[in-house]
């Protein structure tokens, strides 16, 4: 079985600044992985590099066995829509929402494949079951919502299509502790099937005991657990060559 995500020797940054230094990470189907690190150590850059949104990057990134990485020196975001269409959903910091559009528009926008667009009404019901507070807000422009509600919109939008890999950047950032806890619980309720989920978070206690693996990210390098358990490094390498 292929890994949902397999990163090898990934370096990335912005202009003269290098943020990630030769990072390797494997995430297998059905896993929820937590990446723990302080501000400025590269969590967001790691998730952005997977989506092709960093200033520059090099190294291999495979999504379901298909190469989406490679060396790129400019044009952040140029290939992002293609990577998204291959099954990636990134819920970034700051949520990347469309402030003048309604919650319903956001959910529709997440249904980018033809099939999802046709089924957008049913899919909307499905995500509203995960985030019930959004039901009443469907007609509201997102610019008027609270921080917690916006985070829910961003997550719900990412769930509208059949993404194989969900990347969630700091779900708790800027939210009251009670609301962050509720959000993490909602994330754990999502049925990832044969996909996987990676959550970047500063707050270790929010994820502890809830995810399959916790990995530390310090000064642009991953510490411990970066390869899926019960599978030694040599074997995973062998598997793919």
């Amino acid at each position, binding site marked *: 079985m292929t890994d949902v995500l397999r990163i090898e020797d990934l370096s990335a940054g912005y202009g003269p600044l290098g943020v990630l230094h030769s990072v390797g990470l494997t995430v297998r189907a059905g896993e929820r992985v937590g990446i723990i690190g302080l501000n400025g150590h590269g969590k967001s850059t790691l998730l952005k590099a997977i989506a092709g949104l960093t200033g520059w990057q090099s190294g291999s990134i495979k999504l379901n066995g298909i190469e989406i990485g490679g060396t790129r020196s400019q044009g952040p*975001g140029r290939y992002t829509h293609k990577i998204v269409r291959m099954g990636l959903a990134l819920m970034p910091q700051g949520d990347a*929402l469309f402030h003048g559009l309604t919650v319903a*528009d956001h959910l529709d926008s997440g249904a980018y494949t033809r099939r999802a667009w046709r089924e957008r009404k049913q899919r909307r019901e499905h995500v509203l079951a995960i985030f019930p507070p959004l039901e009443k807000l469907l007609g509201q422009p997102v610019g008027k919502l609270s921080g917690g509600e916006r985070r829910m919109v961003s997550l719900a939008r990412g769930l509208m299509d059949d993404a194989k890999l969900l990347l969630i950047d700091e779900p708790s950032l800027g939210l009251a502790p009670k609301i962050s806890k509720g959000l993490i619980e909602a994330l754990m309720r999502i049925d990832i099937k044969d996909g996987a989920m990676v959550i970047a978070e500063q707050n270790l206690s929010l994820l502890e005991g809830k995810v399959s693996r916790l990995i530390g990210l310090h000064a642009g390098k991953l510490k411990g657990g970066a390869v899926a358990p019960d599978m030694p490094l040599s074997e995973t390498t062998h598997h793919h060559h």
Partner: protein
Amino acid sequence: MDPYYLALTTINLAAIYGLLALGISIIWSSLGMINMAQGFTFAVSGYGAWLVAQHISTNGLAVVAGGVITGALAGALIGGIAFIPLYDKPNFPLRSLIATLAISLMGGQCLLWIFTPRVKALPKIFGIGNVHFGPVVASYDKIGSIVCSAILLLVTLAWMKSSRRGLEIRAMMQNPEGAALVGVGLRSTAMAVMMVTGAMAGLAAVLLSQNYFISPTAGVTPLVKGMVVALAGGLGSVAGALIAAILIGFIEAVTAVGLGGQYVLITQFLFIIAVLLVRPRGIAGMIEHTRE
């Protein structure tokens, strides 16, 4: 001064300027590009419609279609030259401004070369005559152009509201990175925007040519007015562009009737300066969220 005539002229001008201004406004907010070649699209579309009238049919629908299709193609050409190769290069806003200006100037020269400076006239596609509604007397021209532009505006707005592509354009107007994250391809969406706005300019060209002649430089004044309406309305705001188009159309109608046609540009620019002094981001620039 006949108030009904004034109102009708206002709506007529507002509809035509609205078509141009909305195009400029949508291009700016979704593509981040000031399209100086919108006037070129306008002029080319006039010739497209004229060629159809000369060689294919003088049927009103055929002439309108000729203008609209030429406009869409010109929009695609501008997008292909000024947006696709430049958008991810540094300093894109300035480069694309210069590129579209260059297209506009070169295109104008090409039109001069191909069609000579002699002006052309389109057939009166709506016929000649007047309709009487009680005290109101309206010429076929005015009714036809108001109805046509209202239809195109409504169809465009409904398409933007209900289709996937329209949602993608609205998403891109608000947040290009967020749009990429929901699978919106910048290039194909940009080309769609350029073609739709080109078609709007094309229709405006056919409608305005019912009263003015077609010439290689016919696009300059409409470009300036479209730009001014878009700025006064608040770049990126659909509602703002429509409100500003009505105000500018009203000022033009009042000035032309009260003072004389030669003062139109003066009063319009005085109005714009006044608006921008009070509201630097335009009439609706603060109401709706626009691209920073």
